[in-house]
C-alpha cells in the first residue's frame, strides 16, 4: 500500500518523539532561561519559512515564528559583550529589538543599553567580535557576599581568582587605674617645744619628718617613726613652701603664734599628696585583633594560601590574589589579641629617710604625664573590650572563553556567511550575565515575521507561508531536482487550495529530513499528498477541488469507469483494512499559538466524531512545527478522521491501454457484475482514487487504487467532512 497517511498505528509515539526532538517549540515555553546553545559544526543550517500577515477568512493577523538562534561567534571588550547568532538561510528581514528576548525577559529589559542588529552575509555592524585562535578572552566581575563576624568560614563562587576581604570593625578597650603611685605620705609638722624669750618670741619647731603609712597610697596620721629634727629656718621656709604649694587637703590648719606666751600650742599640717602624686586615669583605646586564615579549594581541599591578618578598629582590607579560577573555602580562626599590658605606673621611690629626696620626689611635677593615651594601640592595658566585626567578601569572578586552536596554523576564523542571515547582540556583560541569576549566558529568542524569500507559486518573490512554495523551493533551490522534474502545475493548484482554507506554514526547518519522508509526513496536514507523474514530482489535494480551490462537495465524476471486460484476467484483487486500524479514535492536534509579543504557546485540541472515542484511544499529531492556527489543525483532523472512518480497502488491477491516461490522484470507478457457478459474484460499483500507474511496453497498465468513499449522490464523504465536518472539537 502506498498512500500518504500522516501517521501509522504507532504514530502517536512517533509524534511525541518528534515533539521531544523539536528544538524550539517545546523549549520556547518551558525553558526560556536555559543556557545559550552554541552551534555545532555539521548541524543543519536553519531554514526559516514563514510570513506574518492577514490570514484571510476573517482570521486576522497571524504567523511568524519564534526561534532560538545558535551562537556562532562572540567577543568581549571590557564589559562590552558581543554575540553573533545564525538566524538562517537567505535574507531574513524585519527583526526588531522589541521582539528579541534574553531568556524570559525582553533584551532591553535585561540591558537597556543593549543593541540588536541583523545582516545578510556579513558580520552585523553592531557587534565587535574578537577571535584569537588558541587563545582566550576573559572578563571579570565582582560579587559581594557577607563573611563571618570574626572566626568562621566563607565559600566563594566558582571561578574566583581574587578575593578581597573588607572588615568594618569596632574594637575598643576601655579601662581605668592609677598611673602614678608611690608612698602615701603626710608631713606632720608641729612645734614640739616653744621656748619663750623675753622680747623675742622664739619658737623652736620640730619636724616629725615623713612617715610611711600603712597603705601605699593613703597617708596615716599615726607617726610610726622618725625623730624630731631641730628646726631651722630652712625648714620653716620649706614648710611655708609646702603650704604655699597648694595642698589639696589640710586636715588641720591651726597655727597660732599667739604672743609666745603659750607653750602648749601645737600646730599641725597634714598634706595629702594623693592627688598630686597618686594619679588615677582612664582610657579608651582603639585596637585590633589578629586572625589566622587559610584558603583551600572546595573541589579537593587543597590549601593554597595561609596567613595572618590584623583586623583593627575601623576599616581593614585583605586581598588574596593570584588564585587559579576556582571555588574556594576561606576559614578565619585562632583569634589573638594583646590585652595583657600592665598599667604603666610611676612608682614614687622611697625617700629612705632623706627629707631632701622626699621633697624632690613628692613635690615634683614630672610624674603626672603618665596616663595611657587614647589612641590606637595594638598592645593595650587591660580593661573592658568591645569587639564588633563585620566582613564583606568581594569576589573577583573570572570568566574565560577559550578559542580552539586552528589546526595547521592559520585557518578560517570568520566564515564566509554565504546566503546566511546573522544577528548580533551587544550589551553590558554584567547585565547580560548578571551577578544574580544563572551562571551562564541566557538563550536569546527572536521573533521572525518574514522568513526566507522564495519564488511564490501564486506570483512574485518574497517570504511565503504556503507549503507548496516551500516544497518548490526545496526541490528547486536545493538542486534536489531539476526544473523538468518538478510538477509545478500541481504545486500551483495546491497553493490555491491552501490559500482557500488558510492552511499556512510558519516554521523552521532545522533538523535534516529526507524530503520524501518529510513530504509524506507533513503534506496531509495541508490536505495534500505527494505524487510523481511522468518523472515530475509535486503534490495534489487529497480530494478533488473545484475552481475556487475548495474541496469538491458536489458529485464526483470519475475519470474512467472500468468494467470487468477491461480488467486483465487474474489481475484483480481487493484488500480490506483491519477494523482495528479504522476504529474510532480521538485525535490530539497540537499547534502553536503565535503572538508577536511573547513566545509561542503550544495548544492542543481534541477531535473526534460525536459520541465516539470518549475515553480513547488517542493519537497525537504534532503540527506545532508549522501550524499556528486552530482552524488549520481542525481541517487536518477532519481529514484524518474521515479517511480513517470511511476508507475501507484498496484494490489492484491491470487493464489495457485504456488506463494510460490516468494519473495518480484521479478518481475512477470500477463496476463489477460477475456471475459464478456458485451464484452471484462481485457485483458493485466502487469509486477509487488512483495511487499508482505502471505503464509497461506490453500494452498493459497496472493500477493501484484506494477506496474513495462517496455517498449515494456520488459526493466524497471525506470532502464533505473536511468542508462541513461532523467532528466534535474540544
Amino acid at each position, binding site marked *: 500500500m502506498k498512500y*500518504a497517511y500522516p501517521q501509522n498505528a504507532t504514530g502517536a509515539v512517533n509524534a511525541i518523539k518528534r515533539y521531544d526532538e523539536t528544538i524550539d517549540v517545546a523549549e520556547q515555553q518551558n525553558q526560556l532561561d536555559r*543556557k545559550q546553545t*552554541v*552551534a555545532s*559544526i*555539521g548541524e*543543519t*543550517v*536553519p*531554514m526559516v519559512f514563514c510570513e506574518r500577515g492577514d490570514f484571510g477568512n476573517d482570521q486576522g493577523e497571524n504567523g511568524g515564528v519564534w526561534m532560538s538562534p545558535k*551562537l*556562532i561567534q*562572540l567577543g568581549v571588550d571590557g564589559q562590552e559583550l558581543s554575540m553573533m547568532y545564525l538566524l538562517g*538561510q537567505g535574507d531574513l528581514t524585519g527583526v526588531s529589538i522589541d521582539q528579541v528576548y534574553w531568556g524570559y525577559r525582553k533584551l532591553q529589559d535585561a540591558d537597556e543599553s543593549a543593541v540588536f542588529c541583523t545582516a545578510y552575509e556579513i558580520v552585523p555592524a553592531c557587534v565587535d567580535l574578537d*577571535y584569537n585562535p588558541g587563545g582566550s578572552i576573559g572578563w571579570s566581575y565582582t560579587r559581594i557576599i557577607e563573611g563571618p563576624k570574626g572566626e568562621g568560614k566563607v565559600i566563594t563562587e566558582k571561578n574566583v581568582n581574587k578575593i578581597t576581604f573588607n572588615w568594618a570593625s569596632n574594637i575598643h578597650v576601655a579601662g581605668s587605674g592609677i598611673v602614678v603611685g608611690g608612698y602615701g605620705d603626710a608631713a606632720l609638722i608641729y612645734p614640739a617645744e616653744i621656748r619663750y624669750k623675753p622680747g623675742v618670741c622664739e619658737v623652736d619647731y620640730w619636724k616629725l619628718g615623713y612617715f610611711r603609712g600603712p597603705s601605699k597610697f593613703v597617708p596615716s596620721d599615726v607617726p610610726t617613726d622618725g625623730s624630731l629634727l631641730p628646726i631651722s629656718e630652712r625648714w620653716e621656709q620649706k614648710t611655708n613652701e609646702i603650704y604655699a604649694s597648694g595642698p589639696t587637703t589640710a586636715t588641720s590648719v591651726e597655727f597660732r603664734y599667739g604672743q609666745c606666751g603659750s607653750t602648749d600650742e601645737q600646730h599641725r599640717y597634714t598634706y595629702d599628696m594623693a592627688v598630686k602624686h597618686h594619679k588615677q586615669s582612664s582610657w579608651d583605646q582603639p585596637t585590633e585583633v589578629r586572625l589566622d586564615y587559610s584558603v583551600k579549594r572546595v573541589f579537593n581541599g587543597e590549601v593554597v594560601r595561609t596567613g595572618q591578618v590584623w583586623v583593627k578598629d575601623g576599616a581593614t582590607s585583605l586581598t588574596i590574589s593570584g588564585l587559579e579560577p576556582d571555588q574556594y573555602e576561606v576559614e578565619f580562626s585562632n583569634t589573638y589579641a594583646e590585652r595583657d599590658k600592665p598599667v604603666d605606673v610611676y612608682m614614687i621611690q622611697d625617700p629612705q629617710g632623706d627629707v631632701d629626696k622626699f621633697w624632690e620626689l613628692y613635690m615634683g611635677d614630672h610624674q603626672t604625664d603618665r596616663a595611657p593615651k587614647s589612641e590606637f594601640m595594638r598592645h593595650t592595658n587591660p580593661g573592658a573590650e568591645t569587639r564588633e566585626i563585620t566582613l564583606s567578601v568581594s569576589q573577583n569572578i573570572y570568566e574565560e*572563553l577559550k*578559542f*580552539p586552536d586552528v589546526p595547521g596554523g592559520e*585557518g*578560517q*576564523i*570568520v*566564515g*564566509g*556567511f554565504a546566503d546566511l542571515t546573522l544577528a548580533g547582540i551587544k550589551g553590558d556583560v554584567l547585565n547580560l550575565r548578571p551577578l544574580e541569576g544563572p551562571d551562564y*549566558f541566557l538563550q536569546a529568542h527572536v521573533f521572525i515575521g518574514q522568513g526566507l524569500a522564495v519564488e511564490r507559486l501564486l506570483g512574485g518573490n518574497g517570504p511565503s507561508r504556503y507549503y507548496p512554495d516551500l516544497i518548490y523551493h*526545496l*526541490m528547486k533551490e536545493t538542486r*534536489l*531536482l*531539476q526544473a*523538468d*522534474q518538478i510538477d509545478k502545475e500541481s504545486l500551483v493548484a495546491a497553493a490555491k487550495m491552501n490559500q482557500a482554507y488558510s492552511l499556512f506554514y510558519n516554521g523552521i*526547518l532545522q533538523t*535534516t*529530513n*529526507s*524530503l*520524501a519522508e*518529510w513530504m*509524506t509526513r507533513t503534506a496531509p496536514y495541508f490536505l495534500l499528498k505527494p505524487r*510523481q507523474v*511522468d*518523472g515530475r*514530482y509535486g503534490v*495534489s489535494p487529497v480530494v478533488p477541488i473545484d475552481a475556487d480551490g475548495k474541496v469538491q462537495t458536489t458529485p464526483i465524476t470519475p475519470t474512467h469507469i472500468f468494467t470487468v471486460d477491461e480488467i486483465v484476467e487474474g489481475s484483480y484483487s481487493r484488500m480490506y483494512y483491519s477494523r482495528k486500524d479504522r476504529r474510532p479514535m480521538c485525535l490530539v492536534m497540537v499547534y502553536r499559538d503565535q503572538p508577536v509579543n511573547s513566545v509561542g504557546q503550544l495548544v492542543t485540541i481534541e477531535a473526534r466524531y460525536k459520541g465516539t472515542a470518549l475515553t480513547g484511544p488517542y493519537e497525537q499529531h504534532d503540527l506545532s512545527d508549522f501550524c499556528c492556527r486552530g482552524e488549520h489543525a481542525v481541517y487536518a483532523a477532519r481529514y484524518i478522521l474521515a479517511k480513517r472512518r470511511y476508507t475501507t480497502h484498496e484494490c489492484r488491477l491491470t487493464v489495457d*491501454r485504456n488506463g*494510460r491516461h490516468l*494519473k*495518480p*490522484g484521479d478518481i475512477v470507478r470500477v463496476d463489477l457484475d460477475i456471475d459464478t457457478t456458485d451464484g452471484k459474484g462481485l457485483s458493485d460499483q466502487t469509486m477509487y482514487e488512483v*495511487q*499508482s*500507474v*505502471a*505503464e*509497461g*511496453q506490453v*500494452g498493459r497498465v*497496472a493500477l493501484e487504487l484506494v477506496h474513495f468513499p462517496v455517498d449515494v449522490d456520488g459526493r466524497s464523504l471525506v470532502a464533505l467532512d473536511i468542508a462541513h465536518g461532523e467532528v466534535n472539537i474540544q
Partner: protein
Amino acid sequence: MTTAIAARVRFYSDGVDHKLWQNFWHDQTVEGFTYLNFSTTDILLNRSADEGGITLRLPPLMEHVDLISQAIEGEYLAEVRLYESSVTSALPASFGDMEQVARFTGEVQKMRVTFTDITVDLGAGIDAVNGEIPGRRMTTSLIGRLPTL
C-alpha cells in the same frame, strides 16, 4: 490486431539536446531521433515522493559509455516517451502517427556496463540520502570557528 510500440529517449541539459534515440524505425532518423536498439523498463507513476525511476538498456558500445559518462557528470536529464498505434495495413511513419501513452523525465544517475549491455538508471525518486532537506550544514568555512561557552 497488432500494436506498434515505440520508445524514444532524449538526453539534454539546460534545454540543449545531446542525443536523440528511437528504437522503432530501423536505421532511420525520425523527427531527429536516430535508431538505437534500446529498451526501457515500465514507467511508474505514483502518489509517492520516494519512488520512481526507470532503467534504459543500451548496446555496449564505447561511444555509449562515453555519452552516459558525460551525462552523469553533466547531470543530464533523459526524457523517455512511449508511443503506440494499432497496425492495420502499414507501420506508422513517424511519432505523429502514433499516440503517446507514457512519458518519464529523470536525471541520468547511474550506469552499469557489461560485455553484453549497458544499463542506465534514470531519475530515481527523491531518495533519503540525496534528498535531505535542508541540506545545508554548518561548516567552519561557512560560519567560522565556533566559540565555547
